[in-house]
Protein backbone atom coordinates (compact mmCIF):
# COMPACT_ATOMS: atom_id res chain seq x y z
CA UNK A 1 0.00 0.00 0.00
CA UNK A 2 1.34 3.44 -0.99
CA UNK A 3 2.18 5.66 1.97
CA UNK A 4 -0.03 8.62 2.88
CA UNK A 5 -0.38 11.31 5.49
CA UNK A 6 -2.55 10.20 8.42
CA UNK A 7 -4.49 12.72 10.39
CA UNK A 8 -6.96 12.09 13.22
CA UNK A 9 -9.41 14.99 13.40
CA UNK A 10 -10.78 15.99 16.79
CA UNK A 11 -13.70 18.10 15.60
CA UNK A 12 -16.08 18.19 12.64
CA UNK A 13 -14.71 21.64 11.74
CA UNK A 14 -11.15 20.33 11.61
CA UNK A 15 -12.21 17.39 9.43
CA UNK A 16 -14.16 19.62 7.04
CA UNK A 17 -11.32 22.10 6.57
CA UNK A 18 -8.91 19.26 5.81
CA UNK A 19 -11.33 17.68 3.34
CA UNK A 20 -11.86 21.06 1.70
CA UNK A 21 -8.12 21.67 1.38
CA UNK A 22 -7.27 18.23 -0.05
CA UNK A 23 -10.38 17.46 -2.07
CA UNK A 24 -10.45 13.99 -3.55
CA UNK A 25 -6.86 13.30 -2.45
CA UNK A 26 -8.16 12.97 1.13
CA UNK A 27 -10.15 9.88 2.11
CA UNK A 28 -12.23 9.54 5.26
CA UNK A 29 -11.34 6.59 7.49
CA UNK A 30 -14.08 5.27 9.77
CA UNK A 31 -13.90 1.48 10.25
CA UNK A 32 -11.62 1.07 7.25
CA UNK A 33 -13.09 -2.28 6.20
CA UNK A 34 -13.78 -0.91 2.71
CA UNK A 35 -11.21 1.91 2.50
CA UNK A 36 -8.11 -0.02 3.57
CA UNK A 37 -8.92 -2.86 1.14
CA UNK A 38 -9.55 -0.35 -1.68
CA UNK A 39 -6.28 1.51 -0.99
CA UNK A 40 -4.32 -1.72 -0.76
CA UNK A 41 -5.75 -3.06 -4.00
CA UNK A 42 -5.29 0.24 -5.83
CA UNK A 43 -9.03 0.76 -6.39
CA UNK A 44 -8.78 4.16 -4.69
CA UNK A 45 -5.81 6.35 -3.85
CA UNK A 46 -5.16 8.82 -1.06
CA UNK A 47 -2.48 11.38 -0.24
CA UNK A 48 -4.14 11.90 3.09
CA UNK A 49 -6.23 9.56 5.22
CA UNK A 50 -8.47 11.37 7.66
CA UNK A 51 -9.47 9.29 10.69
CA UNK A 52 -12.79 10.56 12.06
CA UNK A 53 -13.16 8.17 15.00
CA UNK A 54 -11.75 10.74 17.45
CA UNK A 55 -14.58 13.16 16.64
CA UNK A 56 -17.08 12.58 19.48
CA UNK A 57 -20.13 13.49 17.39
CA UNK A 58 -19.33 10.76 14.85
CA UNK A 59 -19.08 8.13 17.61
CA UNK A 60 -22.32 9.03 19.34
CA UNK A 61 -25.25 6.62 19.57
CA UNK A 62 -28.18 8.26 21.32
CA UNK A 63 -31.84 7.33 21.63
CA UNK A 64 -34.25 9.99 22.73
CA UNK A 65 -37.62 11.57 22.10
CA UNK A 66 -36.38 12.63 18.65
CA UNK A 67 -35.49 9.05 17.71
CA UNK A 68 -32.08 7.51 17.11
CA UNK A 69 -29.08 9.66 16.40
CA UNK A 70 -26.32 7.49 15.02
CA UNK A 71 -22.86 9.00 14.53
CA UNK A 72 -21.51 8.11 11.10
CA UNK A 73 -18.48 6.20 12.46
CA UNK A 74 -20.24 4.11 15.14
CA UNK A 75 -19.26 0.47 14.46
CA UNK A 76 -21.89 -2.19 13.76
CA UNK A 77 -21.32 -4.13 16.99
CA UNK A 78 -22.41 -1.11 19.03
CA UNK A 79 -25.59 -0.80 16.96
CA UNK A 80 -26.86 -4.37 17.33
CA UNK A 81 -25.33 -4.59 20.82
CA UNK A 82 -27.63 -1.82 22.06
CA UNK A 83 -30.78 -3.27 23.57
CA UNK A 84 -32.88 -0.17 22.87
CA UNK A 85 -31.80 -0.16 19.22
CA UNK A 86 -32.69 -3.84 18.93
CA UNK A 87 -36.19 -3.25 20.27
CA UNK A 88 -36.95 0.09 18.56
CA UNK A 89 -35.01 -0.27 15.28
CA UNK A 90 -34.81 -4.06 14.80
CA UNK A 91 -34.23 -3.90 11.03
CA UNK A 92 -31.05 -1.89 11.62
CA UNK A 93 -29.94 -4.45 14.21
CA UNK A 94 -30.70 -7.25 11.71
CA UNK A 95 -28.52 -5.64 9.04
CA UNK A 96 -25.56 -4.65 11.22
CA UNK A 97 -25.46 -8.18 12.65
CA UNK A 98 -24.85 -9.74 9.22
CA UNK A 99 -22.40 -7.26 7.65
CA UNK A 100 -19.22 -9.35 7.34
CA UNK A 101 -18.18 -11.41 10.34
CA UNK A 102 -17.64 -10.46 13.94
CA UNK A 103 -14.23 -8.93 13.24
CA UNK A 104 -15.67 -6.72 10.50
CA UNK A 105 -18.56 -5.65 12.73
CA UNK A 106 -16.02 -4.52 15.32
CA UNK A 107 -14.87 -1.82 12.89
CA UNK A 108 -17.34 -1.28 10.03
CA UNK A 109 -19.77 1.60 10.54
CA UNK A 110 -23.27 2.24 9.18
CA UNK A 111 -22.11 5.66 7.95
CA UNK A 112 -19.23 4.02 6.11
CA UNK A 113 -21.51 1.37 4.62
CA UNK A 114 -23.69 4.22 3.35
CA UNK A 115 -20.85 6.41 2.05
CA UNK A 116 -19.28 3.43 0.24
CA UNK A 117 -22.56 3.37 -1.71
CA UNK A 118 -22.56 -0.27 -2.73
CA UNK A 119 -25.86 -1.26 -4.40
CA UNK A 120 -25.81 -4.33 -2.10
CA UNK A 121 -25.09 -2.49 1.17
CA UNK A 122 -27.06 -4.25 3.91
CA UNK A 123 -27.59 -1.26 6.19
CA UNK A 124 -29.08 1.06 3.57
CA UNK A 125 -32.52 -0.59 3.04
CA UNK A 126 -33.28 -0.37 6.78
CA UNK A 127 -32.20 3.29 6.79
CA UNK A 128 -34.58 3.96 3.87
CA UNK A 129 -37.37 2.01 5.57
CA UNK A 130 -36.87 4.11 8.72
CA UNK A 131 -36.80 7.38 6.73
CA UNK A 132 -33.35 8.25 8.03
CA UNK A 133 -31.99 11.74 7.42
CA UNK A 134 -28.29 12.23 6.62
CA UNK A 135 -26.66 15.13 8.42
CA UNK A 136 -23.80 16.47 6.32
CA UNK A 137 -21.25 19.08 7.42
CA UNK A 138 -19.46 21.17 4.85
CA UNK A 139 -17.53 24.41 4.41
CA UNK A 140 -20.83 26.34 4.32
CA UNK A 141 -22.40 24.71 7.36
CA UNK A 142 -24.73 21.76 7.69
CA UNK A 143 -27.39 20.33 5.43
CA UNK A 144 -29.79 17.42 5.74
CA UNK A 145 -30.96 15.07 3.01
CA UNK A 146 -33.18 11.96 3.01
CA UNK A 147 -31.06 8.82 2.96
CA UNK A 148 -32.57 7.62 -0.34
CA UNK A 149 -30.98 10.66 -2.02
CA UNK A 150 -27.51 9.99 -0.60
CA UNK A 151 -26.30 7.24 -2.95
CA UNK A 152 -26.22 8.49 -6.53
CA UNK A 153 -24.62 5.55 -8.40
CA UNK A 154 -22.56 2.45 -7.52
CA UNK A 155 -19.72 3.76 -5.34
CA UNK A 156 -20.89 7.39 -5.68
CA UNK A 157 -22.59 9.57 -3.11
CA UNK A 158 -24.00 13.07 -2.75
CA UNK A 159 -21.05 14.46 -0.76
CA UNK A 160 -19.37 17.45 -2.37
CA UNK A 161 -15.85 18.80 -1.83
CA UNK A 162 -15.15 19.36 1.84
CA UNK A 163 -18.30 17.56 2.97
CA UNK A 164 -18.46 14.95 5.72
CA UNK A 165 -21.31 12.64 6.71
CA UNK A 166 -21.70 13.39 10.42
CA UNK A 167 -24.70 11.39 11.59
CA UNK A 168 -27.91 9.64 10.68
CA UNK A 169 -31.11 10.70 12.35
CA UNK A 170 -33.86 8.06 12.48
CA UNK A 171 -37.28 9.38 13.51
CA UNK A 172 -39.03 7.84 16.53
CA UNK A 173 -41.19 4.83 15.72
CA UNK A 174 -44.87 5.09 16.68
CA UNK A 175 -46.45 2.33 18.82
CA UNK A 176 -47.48 -0.65 16.70
CA UNK A 177 -44.37 -0.47 14.52
CA UNK A 178 -42.29 -3.45 13.47
CA UNK A 179 -39.48 -3.87 10.97
CA UNK A 180 -37.13 -6.45 9.53
CA UNK A 181 -34.21 -6.75 7.15
CA UNK A 182 -33.28 -9.96 5.41
CA UNK A 183 -31.07 -10.78 2.47
CA UNK A 184 -30.68 -13.80 0.27
CA UNK A 185 -27.20 -15.32 0.06
CA UNK A 186 -26.26 -18.83 -1.05
CA UNK A 187 -24.26 -19.36 2.18
CA UNK A 188 -25.26 -18.98 5.81
CA UNK A 189 -23.15 -15.92 6.56
CA UNK A 190 -20.23 -13.77 5.39
CA UNK A 191 -21.53 -13.00 1.91
CA UNK A 192 -22.82 -10.15 -0.23
CA UNK A 193 -26.57 -9.89 -0.80
CA UNK A 194 -28.03 -11.31 -4.00
CA UNK A 195 -31.11 -9.37 -2.93
CA UNK A 196 -31.80 -7.54 0.33
CA UNK A 197 -35.19 -6.32 1.56
CA UNK A 198 -36.16 -4.13 4.51
CA UNK A 199 -39.71 -3.35 5.59
CA UNK A 200 -41.09 -1.11 8.28
CA UNK A 201 -44.79 -1.31 9.17
CA UNK A 202 -47.02 0.53 11.59
CA UNK A 203 -50.24 -1.31 12.43
CA UNK A 204 -53.40 0.04 14.03
CA UNK A 205 -54.99 -1.98 16.85
CA UNK A 206 -57.39 -3.61 14.34
CA UNK A 207 -54.43 -4.84 12.27
CA UNK A 208 -54.79 -2.31 9.44
CA UNK A 209 -51.51 -0.97 8.08
CA UNK A 210 -51.17 2.74 8.83
CA UNK A 211 -47.69 3.28 7.44
CA UNK A 212 -45.36 1.14 5.35
CA UNK A 213 -41.90 1.49 3.83
CA UNK A 214 -40.26 -1.28 1.81
CA UNK A 215 -36.71 -0.86 0.51
CA UNK A 216 -34.51 -3.06 -1.69
CA UNK A 217 -30.80 -3.67 -2.11
CA UNK A 218 -28.75 -5.29 -4.90
CA UNK A 219 -31.44 -4.87 -7.55
CA UNK A 220 -30.69 -1.33 -8.81
CA UNK A 221 -27.67 0.99 -9.13
CA UNK A 222 -28.38 2.12 -5.57
CA UNK A 223 -30.59 0.76 -2.78
CA UNK A 224 -34.12 1.96 -3.51
CA UNK A 225 -37.47 2.61 -1.89
CA UNK A 226 -40.11 0.24 -3.31
CA UNK A 227 -42.63 3.03 -3.76
CA UNK A 228 -45.54 1.16 -5.36
CA UNK A 229 -45.36 -1.64 -2.80
CA UNK A 230 -45.12 0.81 0.11
CA UNK A 231 -48.08 2.90 -1.04
CA UNK A 232 -50.19 -0.18 -1.79
CA UNK A 233 -49.81 -1.51 1.76
CA UNK A 234 -51.25 1.53 3.53
CA UNK A 235 -54.88 0.96 4.54
CA UNK A 236 -54.73 -2.80 3.88
CA UNK A 237 -54.95 -5.53 6.52
CA UNK A 238 -51.61 -7.05 7.55
CA UNK A 239 -52.25 -10.41 5.91
CA UNK A 240 -50.24 -12.83 3.84
CA UNK A 241 -52.24 -12.26 0.62
CA UNK A 242 -51.65 -8.53 0.90
CA UNK A 243 -47.95 -9.13 1.51
CA UNK A 244 -47.77 -11.39 -1.56
CA UNK A 245 -49.29 -8.67 -3.72
CA UNK A 246 -46.87 -6.13 -2.23
CA UNK A 247 -44.05 -8.50 -3.20
CA UNK A 248 -45.23 -8.46 -6.80
CA UNK A 249 -45.43 -4.65 -6.73
CA UNK A 250 -41.94 -4.41 -5.22
CA UNK A 251 -40.59 -6.00 -8.40
CA UNK A 252 -41.58 -2.78 -10.22
CA UNK A 253 -38.84 -0.98 -8.24
CA UNK A 254 -36.18 -3.51 -9.19
CA UNK A 255 -33.96 -3.03 -12.23
CA UNK A 256 -31.39 -5.73 -11.55
CA UNK A 257 -28.37 -6.70 -13.61
CA UNK A 258 -27.09 -10.23 -14.16
CA UNK A 259 -23.74 -10.86 -12.52
CA UNK A 260 -21.80 -13.58 -10.68
CA UNK A 261 -24.28 -13.43 -7.79
CA UNK A 262 -27.32 -14.15 -9.89
CA UNK A 263 -29.20 -13.45 -13.12
CA UNK A 264 -31.60 -10.52 -13.33
CA UNK A 265 -34.77 -12.66 -13.58
CA UNK A 266 -33.76 -14.64 -10.51
CA UNK A 267 -33.19 -11.45 -8.57
CA UNK A 268 -36.56 -10.05 -9.61
CA UNK A 269 -38.24 -13.27 -8.44
CA UNK A 270 -36.35 -13.08 -5.13
CA UNK A 271 -37.61 -9.52 -4.56
CA UNK A 272 -41.17 -10.90 -4.51
CA UNK A 273 -40.37 -13.82 -2.21
CA UNK A 274 -38.21 -11.85 0.23
CA UNK A 275 -40.59 -8.89 0.38
CA UNK A 276 -43.44 -11.17 1.41
CA UNK A 277 -41.35 -12.94 4.06
CA UNK A 278 -39.89 -9.72 5.42
CA UNK A 279 -43.35 -8.18 5.70
CA UNK A 280 -44.59 -11.22 7.63
CA UNK A 281 -41.78 -10.82 10.18
CA UNK A 282 -42.21 -7.03 10.35
CA UNK A 283 -45.93 -7.51 11.10
CA UNK A 284 -45.17 -10.12 13.77
CA UNK A 285 -42.79 -7.70 15.42
CA UNK A 286 -45.35 -4.92 15.21
CA UNK A 287 -47.77 -7.17 17.09
CA UNK A 288 -45.30 -8.03 19.86
CA UNK A 289 -44.43 -4.81 21.67
Amino acid at each position, binding site marked *: *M*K*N*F*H*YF*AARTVKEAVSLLEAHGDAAKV*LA*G*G*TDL*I*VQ*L*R*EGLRSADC*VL*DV*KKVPELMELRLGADGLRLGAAV*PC*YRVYGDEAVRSQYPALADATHII*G*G*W*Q*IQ*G*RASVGGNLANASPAADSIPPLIAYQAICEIAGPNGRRRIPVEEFCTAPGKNALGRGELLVALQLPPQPPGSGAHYRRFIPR*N*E*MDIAVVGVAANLTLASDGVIQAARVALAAVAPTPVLAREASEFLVGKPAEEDVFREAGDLAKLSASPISDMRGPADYRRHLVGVLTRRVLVTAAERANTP
Partner: protein
Amino acid sequence: MPKHHITCTVNGDEVEFLCEARQSLLEVLRDVLRLTGTKEGCNNGNCGACTVLVDGVPVDSCLVLGVEAEGARIETIEGVARDSRLHPIQQCFLEDASLQCGICTPGFIVAAKALLDRNPNPSEAEIRFDLAGNLCRCTGYDKIIRAVQKCGAPLRGVD
Protein backbone atom coordinates in the same frame (compact mmCIF):
# COMPACT_ATOMS: atom_id res chain seq x y z
CA MET B 1 7.15 11.27 5.28
CA PRO B 2 8.11 11.02 8.96
CA LYS B 3 7.15 7.89 10.83
CA HIS B 4 4.53 8.02 13.53
CA HIS B 5 5.45 7.40 17.15
CA ILE B 6 2.77 5.21 18.70
CA THR B 7 2.25 4.22 22.33
CA CYS B 8 -0.19 1.46 23.26
CA THR B 9 -0.36 -1.68 25.35
CA VAL B 10 0.13 -5.12 23.87
CA ASN B 11 -0.89 -8.02 26.09
CA GLY B 12 -0.72 -5.73 29.11
CA ASP B 13 2.75 -4.35 28.43
CA GLU B 14 3.24 -0.73 27.44
CA VAL B 15 4.81 -0.65 23.99
CA GLU B 16 6.22 2.13 21.83
CA PHE B 17 6.94 1.80 18.15
CA LEU B 18 7.53 3.78 14.99
CA CYS B 19 5.45 3.02 11.91
CA GLU B 20 4.48 4.42 8.55
CA ALA B 21 0.86 5.47 8.14
CA ARG B 22 0.36 2.83 5.43
CA GLN B 23 1.42 -0.06 7.69
CA SER B 24 -1.34 -2.25 9.06
CA LEU B 25 -1.49 -3.25 12.69
CA LEU B 26 -0.75 -6.78 11.45
CA GLU B 27 2.49 -5.62 9.80
CA VAL B 28 3.44 -3.70 12.92
CA LEU B 29 2.80 -6.68 15.19
CA ARG B 30 4.75 -9.09 13.01
CA ASP B 31 7.52 -6.99 11.45
CA VAL B 32 8.11 -4.23 13.99
CA LEU B 33 7.22 -5.84 17.34
CA ARG B 34 8.21 -9.35 16.18
CA LEU B 35 5.02 -10.87 17.56
CA THR B 36 4.66 -13.42 14.78
CA GLY B 37 1.93 -15.50 16.42
CA THR B 38 -0.68 -13.43 14.58
CA LYS B 39 -0.83 -14.75 11.02
CA GLU B 40 -1.39 -13.10 7.67
CA GLY B 41 -3.92 -15.03 5.60
CA CYS B 42 -5.85 -13.12 2.94
CA ASN B 43 -4.82 -9.59 3.98
CA ASN B 44 -8.23 -8.27 2.99
CA GLY B 45 -10.54 -9.02 5.89
CA ASN B 46 -12.03 -12.32 4.78
CA CYS B 47 -10.16 -15.04 6.63
CA GLY B 48 -9.71 -13.88 10.24
CA ALA B 49 -6.21 -15.40 10.60
CA CYS B 50 -4.98 -12.01 11.86
CA THR B 51 -7.70 -11.60 14.51
CA VAL B 52 -6.62 -9.59 17.56
CA LEU B 53 -8.58 -7.68 20.18
CA VAL B 54 -8.46 -3.88 20.13
CA ASP B 55 -9.92 -2.49 23.35
CA GLY B 56 -11.59 -5.86 23.88
CA VAL B 57 -13.21 -6.00 20.42
CA PRO B 58 -12.18 -8.68 17.89
CA VAL B 59 -10.91 -7.15 14.65
CA ASP B 60 -8.93 -8.20 11.61
CA SER B 61 -5.54 -6.57 12.25
CA CYS B 62 -4.92 -6.42 8.48
CA LEU B 63 -7.75 -3.86 8.30
CA VAL B 64 -6.48 -1.65 11.12
CA LEU B 65 -3.69 0.87 10.59
CA GLY B 66 -0.79 0.74 13.03
CA VAL B 67 -1.28 4.45 13.70
CA GLU B 68 -4.81 3.74 14.90
CA ALA B 69 -3.35 1.76 17.81
CA GLU B 70 -2.35 4.97 19.60
CA GLY B 71 -3.62 4.67 23.17
CA ALA B 72 -5.32 1.33 22.49
CA ARG B 73 -5.23 -1.93 24.40
CA ILE B 74 -4.14 -4.67 21.99
CA GLU B 75 -4.41 -8.38 22.82
CA THR B 76 -2.83 -11.03 20.60
CA ILE B 77 -2.43 -14.80 20.64
CA GLU B 78 0.80 -14.33 22.62
CA GLY B 79 -1.28 -13.03 25.53
CA VAL B 80 -3.72 -15.94 25.71
CA ALA B 81 -1.57 -18.42 27.65
CA ARG B 82 -0.60 -17.46 31.22
CA ASP B 83 3.12 -18.02 31.80
CA SER B 84 3.63 -21.62 30.71
CA ARG B 85 0.01 -22.62 31.27
CA LEU B 86 -2.23 -22.94 28.25
CA HIS B 87 -5.61 -21.26 28.31
CA PRO B 88 -8.47 -23.82 28.41
CA ILE B 89 -9.41 -23.02 24.81
CA GLN B 90 -5.87 -23.81 23.69
CA GLN B 91 -5.95 -27.04 25.67
CA CYS B 92 -9.25 -28.00 24.06
CA PHE B 93 -7.89 -27.28 20.56
CA LEU B 94 -4.93 -29.56 21.32
CA GLU B 95 -6.98 -32.38 22.83
CA ASP B 96 -9.54 -32.36 20.03
CA ALA B 97 -6.91 -31.95 17.29
CA SER B 98 -8.78 -28.88 16.06
CA LEU B 99 -6.00 -27.88 13.71
CA GLN B 100 -3.89 -29.24 10.93
CA CYS B 101 -1.65 -26.70 9.20
CA GLY B 102 -2.18 -24.21 12.02
CA ILE B 103 -2.23 -20.93 10.08
CA CYS B 104 -5.82 -20.14 11.05
CA THR B 105 -5.42 -21.34 14.65
CA PRO B 106 -4.21 -18.14 16.39
CA GLY B 107 -7.12 -16.23 14.87
CA PHE B 108 -9.59 -18.94 15.86
CA ILE B 109 -8.22 -19.06 19.42
CA VAL B 110 -8.41 -15.28 19.89
CA ALA B 111 -11.95 -15.14 18.43
CA ALA B 112 -13.13 -18.22 20.33
CA LYS B 113 -11.78 -16.88 23.61
CA ALA B 114 -13.61 -13.58 23.01
CA LEU B 115 -16.76 -15.53 22.19
CA LEU B 116 -16.54 -17.63 25.37
CA ASP B 117 -15.76 -14.57 27.50
CA ARG B 118 -19.03 -13.09 26.26
CA ASN B 119 -21.09 -16.27 26.20
CA PRO B 120 -19.64 -19.23 28.17
CA ASN B 121 -22.26 -21.68 26.93
CA PRO B 122 -22.76 -21.05 23.21
CA SER B 123 -24.87 -23.32 21.03
CA GLU B 124 -23.36 -24.86 17.93
CA ALA B 125 -25.28 -22.35 15.80
CA GLU B 126 -23.94 -19.43 17.85
CA ILE B 127 -20.38 -20.72 17.55
CA ARG B 128 -20.70 -21.20 13.81
CA PHE B 129 -22.21 -17.72 13.36
CA ASP B 130 -19.69 -15.91 15.55
CA LEU B 131 -16.70 -17.73 14.08
CA ALA B 132 -17.88 -17.25 10.48
CA GLY B 133 -15.21 -14.58 10.06
CA ASN B 134 -12.49 -17.20 10.58
CA LEU B 135 -11.73 -19.53 7.71
CA CYS B 136 -10.06 -22.94 7.98
CA ARG B 137 -9.22 -24.97 4.87
CA CYS B 138 -8.02 -28.08 6.73
CA THR B 139 -10.35 -29.24 9.48
CA GLY B 140 -13.81 -28.87 7.99
CA TYR B 141 -14.65 -26.87 11.15
CA ASP B 142 -16.35 -29.69 13.10
CA LYS B 143 -13.41 -30.28 15.41
CA ILE B 144 -13.05 -26.56 16.01
CA ILE B 145 -16.73 -26.25 16.92
CA ARG B 146 -16.44 -29.25 19.28
CA ALA B 147 -13.40 -27.79 21.01
CA VAL B 148 -15.15 -24.49 21.63
CA GLN B 149 -18.26 -26.25 22.96
CA LYS B 150 -16.20 -28.50 25.22
CA CYS B 151 -14.22 -25.54 26.49
CA GLY B 152 -17.34 -23.78 27.69
CA ALA B 153 -17.71 -26.19 30.63
CA PRO B 154 -14.29 -25.78 32.36
CA LEU B 155 -14.45 -22.03 31.75
CA ARG B 156 -17.75 -21.89 33.60
CA GLY B 157 -16.11 -23.85 36.42
CA VAL B 158 -13.25 -21.36 36.60
CA ASP B 159 -15.71 -18.48 36.93
